């Protein structure tokens, strides 16, 4: 599984690649490798999906009650209503 030297090298650069920060030559190298290596293709795609899942669903928000407790503790109750949309 993904243990060829090429794959290891590619692995190092995957975040740069996914963040569009890889330089053109590196980018081309990565894409060429991905076209030939189905396992690395899976790793890249599932890595990207992992990032998206966390981006879309990974944010924990304060509950309404917790927000009220916070405002009370900070003596900001007068402003609580303003903070709610």
């Amino acid at each position, binding site marked *: *599984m*993904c*243990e060829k030297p090429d794959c*290891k090298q590619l*692995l*190092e650069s*995957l*975040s*740069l690649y996914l963040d569009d920060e890889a330089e053109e030559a590196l980018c081309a190298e990565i894409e060429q490798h991905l076209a030939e290596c189905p*396992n690395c293709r*899976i*790793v890249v*795609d*599932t*890595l990207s*999906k*992992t*990032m998206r*899942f*966390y*981006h879309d*669903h*990974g*944010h*924990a*928000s*304060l509950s309404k009650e*917790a*927000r009220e*407790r*916070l*405002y009370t*503790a*900070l003596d*900001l109750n*007068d*402003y609580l209503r*303003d*903070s*709610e*949309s």
Partner: protein
Amino acid sequence: MADSSITEATLNLDRLRAGDKAAFAQMVALYADRLYNLIVKLLGNPQEAEDALQETFVNAFRNIHRFEGRSQLGTWLYRIAHNTALMRLRTRRPDTISIDEPVTVEDGEMLPRQIYDWRDLPEDEMLTGEALAYMEAAIQQLPEPLRAVFVLRDIEELSTAEVGEALNLSEPAVKSRLHRARLFLRERLSEYFHERTGDHV
């Protein structure tokens, strides 16, 4: 939800520094949710995170005169939130540490082991409540230094430079930790989806 009409640009820093309560309230409205997400990810306990959030704002208010405006206010607040949470982590008594010990992440362990292909599974079926809880638990397994970077960069959408400033890290260090965190989480999610779909080929 915070009032979307308040932005960092509309916050009046002079009034904030002068101890103006309305300005402070605006700052809380703008940042409470974002800081809470970082803190709860670091502490893994909503109740303690609430306390730490409160402490963060008290510390911020007390020190706002030292905020020089060279960094963004948000970055400065994240730094205080991070330090406040770390302080709590350090003073936790050993017997209160979660039994889910964070796994150590050596570079060698970052090689992908799970090549299970879950790219094309239907998302609405994948993202059950159980899956979301698993995702949260997987974050808790990340070593703390990787966790803060991942949360700020990939969930809260700070830039590499901002994360570096908030956590006092160089940009290459941010990038390297972020990459290790992502690979770690990909591994955990792959294990989970592999197991759940029962497709043990």
